[in-house]
């Protein structure tokens, strides 16, 4: 299998390269920073989203209460889901600018240390 052999074909260069990034402090920081955003954001949107069918299904009287003229809580909560999704999306985009900087810096360090990114653009697949 071509897919399996690549690493063995050129063990020194390949292994060092991936290991080199793995041992960089910046890479650990990048993974940590991503986790710090993605995990709470995911938990939040899943809970917020499933609160809608649960409340509508099991507390319909409460959700039918009119709060804004003829508009009830159920509709406002459903509508708020759209803005929740957009809000998290935009927050992620702005947080990800920092991730991109980490990434670019890691690749620069690699290049400075003599690795050629283009060389293995095709590896592994």
């Amino acid at each position: 299998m071509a897919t399996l052999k690549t690493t063995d074909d050129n063990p020194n260069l390949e292994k060092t390269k991936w290991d080199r990034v793995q041992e960089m402090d910046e890479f650990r920081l990048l993974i940590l920073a991503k986790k710090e955003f993605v995990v709470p954001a995911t938990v939040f949107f899943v809970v917020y989203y499933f609160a809608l069918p649960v409340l509508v299904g099991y507390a319909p009287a409460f959700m039918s209460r009119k709060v804004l003229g003829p508009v009830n809580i159920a509709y406002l909560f459903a509508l708020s889901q759209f803005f929740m999704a957009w809000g998290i999306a935009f927050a992620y985009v702005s947080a990800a600018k920092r991730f991109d900087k980490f990434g670019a810096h890691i690749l620069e360090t690699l290049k400075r240390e003599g690795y050629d990114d283009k060389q293995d653009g095709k590896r592994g697949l």
Partner: protein
Amino acid sequence: MHFDMTLILFLGFIAITLGITAWASRRSGSSASFFAANRQITAWQNGVAVAGDYMSAASFLGIAGLIAFFGYDGFLYSVGWLVAYLTVLLIVAEPLRNAGKYTMADVLAYRMNPRPVRAMASLSTLTVSTFYMIAQMIGAGSLVALLLKGSHISFTVAVSGVGVLMIVYVVFGGMLATTWVQIIKAVLLIAGTILLSVLVLAHFHFSFVEFFQAISQVTYHTPDGKVVVKDFMTPGLRFKLPYGPLELISLGVALIFGTAGLPHILVRFYTVPDAKTARYSVVWAMVIIGSFYIMTTFLGFGAATIVGRDFISKNGGTNMSAPLLAKVIAGDVFFAFISAIAFATILAVVAGLTISASTSFAHDFWTNVIHSGVERKPGEERLVARIAAFAVGAISITIAIILGPTANVAFLVALAFAVAASANLPVIVFSIYWKRFNTSGAVCGLLFGLIGSIVLILIGPSIMGIDAATVVGAARHPIQHVPIFPLENPGILSVPIGFAGAILGTLLGKKDPHAIQRFEELEVRANTGLGSEKATAH
């Protein structure tokens, strides 16, 4: 008169898209261009194309109809379709773009023993895509029967027409033509929806208070002739206890986990130059998709208040709500315009499904499973994909015609999402994020998710049920028995089954040092883009 107008508008759409296909065919001279449009699609283009790939006739006609008939409960449907994109954005899109080449199986094969994993992933992709496609094509045929009542275009002609067009787009134009068909369709769909929404608001003198007051008092007749006045803002008109809320939650699970496992959406992220562009394109898609689903408020409630349930029931039923709204509010020409958009909508979605199915067959199954990852001669993978596209199209046309216009196809869409959520998503997530994950885990996850979804649907109310003797033909349940599983959508149970299969398979299998070592590489690659597939010049 109106169907001539619809036909002219639709022929215009076909002429433009065929022109694009001819242009794209001259540019698709390599595999990267045929399967991934040279990875040169920009963020906004891909965002619009994702929206065009995703917003199906079920969204446009189906949800508008559900709101027109069941009010708020129909609108509940709209919400999950957007929120699901957070899973795509936060968890799947960027690592997938960085680690893969043409298909979702690339990411699994990166760490695992490629042959069994690709074979299973390809089977799952083909299942999701063809089921979804058959549902779309039957939808297209029924739509023609309704919209062009009195014309000489039959169900069979409509299904064959849609099928032949999608084959032409994909076989000759590849991913580039498919992308532009999706972009044009999305723009048309959004334009039509905005126009309809403004007209609905104009009907209520641009007063939201007046609009929502009308929704609070919708009048219609029950089948036995009684007059009913209902507040359509109230939840519970459709989803009633005991199983209604569970059905909603189960649908939510399938959407939230399934969208990020839909092969025809995932392949779109290989058409952009890098992970950052993929990220921005998801946000573009979310803005468009979200705006569209918010506007279903005006389409659906507008149809409920301005057209009314009684009139819609007599003139084709729920799915005709949006086109009938156009007709009542702005006349025949607008009705023709909205009808033409509905066709364009179906065409763009089936083209996306066809290219993802044929790419998976050619790249995963043919090249990597049968021929160990090497093309025997240049261009073979593309040739196989073209043949596969032709075969997938021909099979879908045939099955759609055999099932016929009255077939209940909602369960096919439910099945597609359930398989995507239960089989595809767990193994994608574990491949990217779980170090210990191995080949047996991937194969078990895919297998459990696939079989779990199919079995739960077979023993659920879509297939099993007891019909009165008056119900005949395709509308009858295939198995006359009380359903064993009470929900139409199996997500709430089948997604945990898929995850459990992946976890069990991993822990029961041997620790795989190769998969663990490759995880370290994948982690670097997914997070930094090091070594990822680059855009190519054409």
